[in-house]
């Protein structure tokens, strides 16, 4: 079974009368517990692909299956609901809410739910990513690596099937980057979560199962088990 299956994705943008084809027919599938990376120069369509896989954007053509369910043409409300249920996001710039503590930041995706166990679960997730002693700290009291760990914990609060990471090591030094990648590897192996990291960073490839190389909106080649 695949967690996510993209078939022949095409995305066209209209800019100033010209039509730009950001994705030119991309096929992509991810198994549970798989950690893959998508590499490519800027402008190659990485972010567009990530947005479509993350249900933040819709493809112009092609089909997207999430756990064998066609999610290509859902409306905004349903896509939002699915994002919440099935997809976790980690960003290059962490995007934590500066006014909330680490625990509260992890709780954010579920904050509007009636959920008694939410806080305990957030604490547990933070402890598992090694921030058991930083629970009440605000983002400005945390280092870059710690912030990214909070973001990872946040991406896991809803028990997602996939985690999408946009340049997760882009703002970190190499040592910290390795720790974060270790974390992803562990989450994929232990919790069976599929992880897609979009990156420039060659370091990532040491940790992933497969690397997709995206050039000009097409996968040129795939590296297995680097």
């Amino acid at each position, binding site marked *: 079974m695949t967690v996510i299956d993209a078939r022949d994705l095409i995305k066209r943008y209209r800019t100033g009368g010209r039509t730009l084809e950001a994705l030119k027919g991309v096929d992509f599938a991810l198994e549970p517990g798989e950690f893959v990376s998508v590499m490519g120069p800027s402008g190659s369509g990485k972010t567009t692909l990530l947005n479509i896989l993350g249900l933040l954007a819709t493809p112009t053509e092609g089909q997207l299956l999430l756990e064998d369910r066609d999610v290509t043409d859902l409306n905004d409300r349903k896509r*939002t*609901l699915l*994002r919440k249920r099935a997809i976790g996001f980690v960003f290059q710039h962490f*995007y934590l*809410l500066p*006014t909330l503590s680490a625990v509260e930041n992890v709780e*954010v995706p579920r*904050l509007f739910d009636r959920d008694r166990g939410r806080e305990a679960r957030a604490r547990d997730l933070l402890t598992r990513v090694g921030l058991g002693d930083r629970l009440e700290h605000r983002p400005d009291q945390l280092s870059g690596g710690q912030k990214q760990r909070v973001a990872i914990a946040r991406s896991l609060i809803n028990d997602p099937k996939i985690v999408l990471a946009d340049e997760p090591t882009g703002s970190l030094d190499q040592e910290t980057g390795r720790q974060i990648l270790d974390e992803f590897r562990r989450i994929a192996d232990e919790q069976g979560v599929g992880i897609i990291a979009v990156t420039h960073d060659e370091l990532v490839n040491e940790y992933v199962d497969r690397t997709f190389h995206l050039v000009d909106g097409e996968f040129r080649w795939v590296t297995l088990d680097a």
Partner: protein
Amino acid sequence: MLDPLYRRFPAILMAKRNLTRTKSRSVLASLGIVIGVIAIASLGMFGVALEYSISSQLGDLGNQVTVSPDQEAGVQKLTERDIQKIRRAAGPTASVSPVKQTVERVTYDRGRSRNELIYGIDDPASVYNASEGRIPDPFQSGVLVGEDVAEDEELQPGNTITVNGTSMRVRAVLGSTSSYSQLNPENRIYLPVTSFEQRGYQQVYVTAESGAAANESAMAIRERLNGREQRVVVQELGSLVDQINETFQVVNTVLVGIAAISLFVAGISILNVMLMSTVERREEIGVLRAVGYQKLDVLKVMLMEATLLGVFGGVVGVFVSAFVGLAINHYTVEDVTATFRLINLWYLLIAFAFAIVVSILSGLYPAWKAANEEPVDALRG
């Protein structure tokens, strides 16, 4: 203390944290609301105090009716028969006091003498209260003077004055009534009506039990006396009081309306602050949408911020206004407890409600804008 509230309404928690992030900006935005609330509430309360002090001066004018001969129709005096008719028309519960007027030479104790308007009255005890001495009932001899006359001429019961050559003893000093009343005796001299030689009456005062009864009496008197020919002019003071009250209400509404403009200005400053903050927090809002916040959820958080600004401003404003109200009532009606009259509390409530409504309305557009931002665009930075 607020934790259960936050757990129940997480939007409040997020909104509050966001507002405290830019403290001075939030405080300034709600300062506008504070000023608006103070303006509305205190102008409203000022109007009330003004009306209150005027109407306490007007007193219970509402139950008085004055009947005078219609001089335009050629009637110079009211006859005994007219008085009888008026008595019957006014009914048994109203008191009817016919009054005669004449100008006589009056000499006071200290030797000064002047021409004064002298009133003849039949039954003063039913109309006036004595502030000194006692009003004789029936009133057959002596003289009654108003408070101002007594003060100016240093009269008190037992003194004598000379009216048209006849020496008369002052029986009582009449307490003043409302200053706008035609019955106000403060600078009048009353003699028994029996001491007048002239036959007719110049005026009849009818005092009814209530404003409504006065109105009925007035209509009955008009009907009876002006039936066949126009004989009398009937004036109801109640309608005058109503007019004065209406005028005050208009003035008050205009004042409060002007004050409301300041709240609109405050609303614009909230709009401005909220728009700035949606631009600044674009990425955060994008993240919220990415991690599964529906548009409505984002709208809720943003609107909650606007509401909190309004609540904060409103609470402070109401608090300050209450003090302003105390001061207003202290200086105008000299009765601080008048602040707690229901209508003043209404003004406070209205000002507060208006503050909240204005804040929410101002938050609506920025919140809508934030909610409808595409997360992809927002996250691109």
